[in-house]
């Protein structure tokens, strides 16, 4: 079944944080479309709202206003348990600090999202875990604990965990931020391969080298999506 609709369609999205009587406009009117199979890199200065946008896309957070269609379905007003379910099935997260669970083995960490799905047979879970670990080249470390792995290895396991549920989109927030350049390179290589195999990826990165891997670059500035030229202008304005 061929779906011509964009995977993600966001219009006029705003997010306001209220803390101690201070309003922070983290996002103010974001328009964004991501097609199936696209590899999008998002960049912008610190505090411009990249993580906020990513977590709204990932249904971890809800927007203050605006429209969000995921797979053609409105998702901005869903309740907690509905969002949990969609997150579990459609979204794969990769965090800057890996966020593996220390008390669980590599295998159990990867299996985790699958255990939150009702009605999946144990054999099917096992197959999927195996497969995604093989895809990131960590199958031989299945019985290890995260503390026994290097940072790069941990991030590869985190990628495997994101893949295990066969999500519609992988969201990565500075996946190389805690890694040295060699390990960072390896993780980026991994993401590129996944993209080649058909995965949709939306990644936040500061590093222009890694942004170049992507099909499309989005620039965020002060809670808005801006074009390359606009960004340059704005940055220049600040410098003056």
């Amino acid at each position, binding site marked *: 079944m061929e779906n011509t609709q964009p995977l993600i369609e966001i219009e006029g999205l705003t997010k306001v944080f209220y803390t101690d009587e201070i309003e922070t406009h983290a996002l103010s009117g974001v328009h964004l479309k991501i097609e199936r199979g696209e590899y999008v890199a998002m960049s912008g200065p610190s505090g411009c709202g990249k*993580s906020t946008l990513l*977590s709204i896309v*990932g249904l*971890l*957070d809800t927007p203050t206003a605006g429209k969000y269609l995921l797979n053609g379905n409105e998702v901005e007003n869903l309740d*907690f*348990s509905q969002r*949990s*379910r969609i*997150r*579990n*099935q459609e*979204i794969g*997260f990769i*965090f*800057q*600090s*890996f*966020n*593996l*669970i*220390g*008390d669980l083995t590599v295998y159990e960490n990867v299996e*985790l*999202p699958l255990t*939150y*799905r009702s009605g999946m047979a144990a054999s099917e879970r096992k197959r999927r875990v195996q497969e995604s670990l093989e895809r990131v080249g960590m199958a031989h470390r299945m019985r290890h*604990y*995260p*503390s026994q792995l290097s*940072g790069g290895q*941990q991030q590869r396991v985190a990628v495997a*965990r994101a893949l295990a*549920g066969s999500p519609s989109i992988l969201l990565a927030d500075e996946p190389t931020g*805690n890694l040295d350049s060699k390990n960072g390179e390896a993780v980026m290589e991994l993401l590129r391969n996944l993209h080649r195999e058909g995965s949709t990826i939306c990644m936040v990165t500061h590093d222009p080298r890694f942004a170049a891997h992507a099909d499309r670059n989005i620039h965020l500035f002060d809670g808005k999506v801006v074009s390359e030229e606009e960004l340059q202008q704005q940055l220049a304005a600040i410098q003056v």
Partner: protein
Amino acid sequence: MRIWLADISFALRQLRKAPGFALLAVLTLGLGIGANTAMFTVLENVLLRPLPYAGASRLVAISPVGGSMRGATSWLNYVDIRGGMKNVAEAGGYSDDFAVVQTRDTATSVVAPHLTSNLLTMLGAKPLLGRTFTPQEGLRGGPQVVLLSEGVWRQEFHSDPSIVGKVVHISGEPRTVVGVMPTSFHFPENTGSGIDTAVWLPLQPTSEMLKARGYDFLQILAKLHPGVSLARGQTQLNAASQQIGSLNKNYRGLKFTLMPYSNQVVGNIRPVLIGLSAALLLVLLIACANVANLLLARAIGRQQEFAVRVALGAGRYRLLRQVMTEGAVLSALGCMAGLALAWLAIVGVHRLPPNTIPRMQTIHIRWTVVLALAGIATLTTMLSSLLPALLVSDTDPNATLQASSRGVGTRSARSKLTMWLVSAEIALSTLLLVGTGLLARTMWNLEHAWLGFHTTRVTTYQVTPPNASGFSGMQVVQPGAQAPTSVNTLAYEPVLERLRHTPGFEDAAFTTLLPLGGSNIRTSYQVVGHKVSELNAPEALITAVSSNYGRVMETPMMQGRMIDGDDAADTTPVAVINEALANGEFRGRNPIGQRLDLGGKETGILVPPTIVGVIANERMNGLQSPVAPMIMLPAAQVPTSSLYYEALLNTQVNFVVKTRGNIPVAKEAREVFHQVAPGFALDSFQTMSKVLDHTTFHQRLGLELTASFAGLAILMVVAGLFGVLSQYVGFRKREIGIRLALGASRQDVLRMVFRQSMLMAGYGLLCGLAISLLASRLIRSFLFGVQTFDWMTYAGVLVVLLAVSVAAAVWPARQAVSVDPMATLRMD
């Protein structure tokens, strides 16, 4: 020293920074320590501290093996034993008795032990005023003297400083006061608070005592010569009893045994106290586990701090000492709280009904207790902080400082340990709960058991004639001498008649043996036509009752008729026996019409009474001992010339009054006696349900104490579970955040927390139930009508503890559910 002070001040600052933690720990410890200190105080006073007599450790009680009246023997046996043991011990004797102290306007029934004249010297007792007894005063026909207790001296004689040498009236006889004993003198022990207002009389053998070897009324107390072992004393005692047997053919095979007097005093309370101490130790262990957990939780929370300290060069020993100091400070504070609680508890002990615990009057907190407290505090410090201290001192700074970049949470032995500690707490409280459950079932059974009579609206009280002779003064009136008129005809019958017509009173009667009253007057008897040898003659409880006794108590007749008003002094003597005697003696044959030989000339019952009825068994001595065979005689038919008259009637009797509602009877009863029979002492007014309460007192006390210990334990378990689960959730906030991000639903998270709680409870319960199965045998002797494996109790405990573990998890679970995945993940 400086550093040590610095450690203490740092520990105090740490505690002040977390006042909730400190308060919880101090309270938990305080409860545990306080309860244990109170218990130790009782133990120390009752079991450990020597009795306050000269050479107390050499005092031994000598009693016949399988004897009839609670270890008592006769004067003649006493004299022979004293002689036979001369080389190894000095022997004296005493009998428990009572007397009426008369002053110008009052008659008070008091405890009046009769003592052989050497006994007080043997005990090394020093009088407050005057002197103790002289040898002359212990002889037959010797001077009539009395030793007053300080209590009687103050209350009845207004602390008259010149009381010594004055003549007072005791049970209708003039006696010269030779001395006053101080309140600290409590001999015989176990007499209860009555001993505070006792009088002591010299035991002067009557002709009856000098004649009848079967007249058992005397308790023998001996003091072994220094260096004589118990075994040697027993050997000598065996020789003496053999001698008695060889000279008196009826007493062949007579045996005596000797045991330390302190054992006799402490008696059957020892297992109760030891059981309760064990239960309390469990509570203390739970408290320690809780404090250990709190310290552990804090240690984990401060891992970073410790790592930094190590990185800055702190040695293992310094870290160890710092945590231990914190534990010690907590223990010290706990001790203070505990001491206050213990003091309150001891105040409570003194409020208990008299004679609940032997030597109760003398229970006080002493320096040994303070010493024990210090011991307990050290123990709790070690138990509660050694583990956390060792773990902390084992900190690997590198791992800890890098941990934050190495995945969330650590597969730590520490968090496992806290869970095991809580499981252990649950196991321990399972034990306590099972004990409580079994005792509660016992209590229910006791309260709903059929006693053989109804307690509703029945009030009882004791009546003592002014000239009561007591057990130590019994005599058979010689044939030919003028027999006195019975106190029954003179006083009791007219009194009963008046009582029955008092408004509000439905019926009244008296008995010489009150059901559940615990007294134990026995006689040997023979069924006429079934002669057996004298030593083998069967024994039964003997009581004299007025008419209407059966009606007041509502005890059903199994066969024949009850004693009634027509059984008078001049009609055929009759007797009613209880079911136990009917079944034991007659075994299916019809007892009605059979006659009982109650001793003939020797006792003064010349005509054997005819059995006219069989009455249902009444519980005489509590519910746990089997019902003894019993013979009831009509009070009107007890000849005043017989021994039974002195033993049963001309002594304390128990009136029972059935009222129409729940009304007090004391005022009316005293009024009637005052008019009809002045000079009689009336006391111990209580309802029959009170009497019943009294007999189940040990079980109830045991139940109430174990129940409160179990309640305490549950509170601590809730605190423990709650603490560990909150900590579990606290440490896993990030993990929960990740799980939520990965699509876990709220139910998944709830399930995770409850599962954790259930796991801890499950392990604990499993161990606890297994241990309980083994340990419950230890309390078997306190149980009544319930098996040690009572599935209802076990199921109940299971339900309670599971409920507790769910309840304790509710708040932490809510915390877990309210984790905001965004917020936790942002803390990169």
